[in-house]
């Protein structure tokens, strides 16, 4: 504690009611660390994003499940790495805080999945072996084939599939994989000749 702060603390505590009436009426807001405002952000946006970053939504156990599921959905292949290697779990964590309406379907979906696994295999999803994990995922990953009582799982898995795909293909790794070649200054000269020919245009 700095000397100035020590004195302040002494004034307020050791000497009892030595505060001005105005201070007593409204406690000063807690001192947050000053937020650095990045380019392209308004201060209020930087403050909000810093606050969301500091919060935690997923428990360690939930995050483990989200990570496993995201890598089932987008695994590494010959072209690029997996969802977790592209930072998808952290992106999903942020979106839960940024769009709180997603929290209940996500948390509830994870709970539903664990309860199903516990019923079937005596263990939560993350603690199941790979074969059992695949067995349960196969029951919820194909909406048109899924049994009626698996529908909550289907809805949850659709949500996970969407968030994983968006998180992956908006990452540096995913954009490279996809082959998006824009976002660079250029001169548009029209559709390449070989493409015109391919489509008979």
């Amino acid at each position, binding site marked *: 504690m700095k000397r100035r702060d020590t004195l302040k603390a002494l004034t307020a505590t050791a000497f009892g009611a030595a505060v001005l009436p105005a201070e007593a009426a409204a406690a000063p807001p807690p001192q947050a660390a000053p937020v650095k405002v990045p380019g*392209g952000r308004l201060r209020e946006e930087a403050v909000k994003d810093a606050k969301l970053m500091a919060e935690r939504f997923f428990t360690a156990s939930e995050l483990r499940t989200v990570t496993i599921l995201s890598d089932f959905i987008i695994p590494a292949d010959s072209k690029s790495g997996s969802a977790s290697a592209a930072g998808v779990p952290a992106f999903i964590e942020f979106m839960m805080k940024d769009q709180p309406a997603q929290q209940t379907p996500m948390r509830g979906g994870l709970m539903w999945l664990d309860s199903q696994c516990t019923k079937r295999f005596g263990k939560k999803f993350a603690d199941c072996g790979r074969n059992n994990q695949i067995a349960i995922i196969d029951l919820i990953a194909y909406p048109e084939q899924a049994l009626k009582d698996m529908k909550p799982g289907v809805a949850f898995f659709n949500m996970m599939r969407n968030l994983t795909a968006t998180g992956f293909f908006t990452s540096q790794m995913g954009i490279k994989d996809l082959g998006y070649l824009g976002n660079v200054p250029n001169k548009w000269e029209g559709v390449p000749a070989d493409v015109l020919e391919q489509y008979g245009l």
Partner: protein
Amino acid sequence: MNLFNIKEQPQVYDAVIVGSGAGGGMAAYVLAKAGAKVCLLEAGGYYDPADPKYITQMKWPYESPRRGASTQLRPFGDFDAAWGGWDIDGEPYSAVKGTDFKWFRSRMLGGRTNHWGRISLRFGPDDFRRGSLSGVGDDWPIGYDDMKPFYDKVDRLVGIFGSVENFPNEPDGLFLPAPKPRLHELMLKKAAANIGVPIIPSRMAMLTQKINDERGECFYCHQCNRGCYAYADFSASSVLCKPAVKTGNTTLINGAMVREVLTDDKTGLATGVSYVDVATMQEKQIRAKTVILGASACESARLLLNSKSPRFPNGLANTSGVVGKYLNDSTGASRGAFVPALMDRKRYNEDGVGGMHVYTPWWLDNKKLDFPRGYHIEYGGGMGMPSYGFGFGMEGMNGKYPTRNGTMKPAGGYGAGLKDDYRRFYGAYVGMAGRGEPVPLETNYCEIDPEKVDKYGIPVLRFHYKWSDYEIKQAKHMQDTFEQIISSMGGVATGPKPDASTNYGLALPGQIIHEVGTVRMGNDPKKSALNSYQQAHDVKNLFVVDAAPFVSQGDKNVTWTILASSMRTSEYIVDQVKKKNL
């Protein structure tokens, strides 16, 4: 001592302008260039798309923690240039039960021109006389010939690309070269031609060639909505407000939320405005010989209705009682489609300009249809930069089309096969959106809410707006046309066809952000607030230069007409001052 601590500025400006968007920015530009001392008031903050402090252009999705998803402050995505949106903290509005209106505002220098799609269509001769042509609605007090010289000047000053087409009621301008169509646009053009729907190069306010030393040339990043650090697209902040300030004749005050127009009770003339300095919440005043409102259609109406005095008990410029009435927004309906022929596309950079390279102007005769006004069609698609939402809904797609080896598989899924699906479906979608002309109705209006105020203590707006059968039938026609185009190009429309239960997908009033008409002009002071120069019938030194004066809006996005009519009014003001009439 003044109870409310009102600060009076002693200076008397030649003009005070409220709002720095297309209308206010143009007025500041013309008047300052003519040597007038101008005070330009903007409720929002300063903005310069070339200042790194504000730049969002050329950022990658992963530079946003939400990957470009929308926020309350940026409803069109985390990189969109415009600050504000439908829902601004402390600035409420409402719609009475059974009616709707969504009010989009941009609180920043340049206003909504920072958000705008840059589609820049002139009204045609017929658009000024729909009343007499169709028997529904009203004519303007001016015609295309009055506006043409100003459209020409705006083309030269601001810059617009397009092509000379001699298309009926779609006047050609002084165009820079139009960019060539993208692949899906060529496919759309061919498909639409087969069913008699024309598609021509779009007309938009980006510089495909350099026009002066202050502004650069388009470098085809597709991100005009993020603001352009080369100033190669039009926004009022870069193209009008900054040059106006540079003359030395314009005092720009940001964070100035205007409360009312002040008048002299004896002469009935406007004497200036009072505003709330949003940083200090202090009330201040600006004195001026002429007051010009360019705050946006609804905000200008609100200002006039809130400017009550013993002499003007119904609000200012409102002897006719027409202020707030005839509020009308473009109609809008859209449909998307998947184009199987575009699966597994070759990759190349097809960003292009920020928006479509082609569009469909209104091509039919309403006399042969069951609705009285037309629409144009805007097109989207291509291999765009992925952002939040990319890949959503794959479970509705990948079960319907064969895999690379020609077999079918169940929808949804996971794993390497699914990962490959995202690559295969990338860039294989098109979208189309109709933007139509509504019939302005007296029963669609905004008024002052008798009970509510915003955080500045300014009474807020309450809306009454319902679409009529005219617009609903037009939306139905749009949906039929979209399906025909999609079918003609071998596409598969996404989702069910919007039907009567949703008004055929007709957007809610306000959602297209083309609202006009709340302070209409006309020759009869009993039926209009402004004369044909957008000058108040009741108060000769009061003008409105946004879209509030417009009697109707054509099926043309109105920004180019705001620019042209604000320029026309501003030149009229200069002329009237010279003639000592003002």
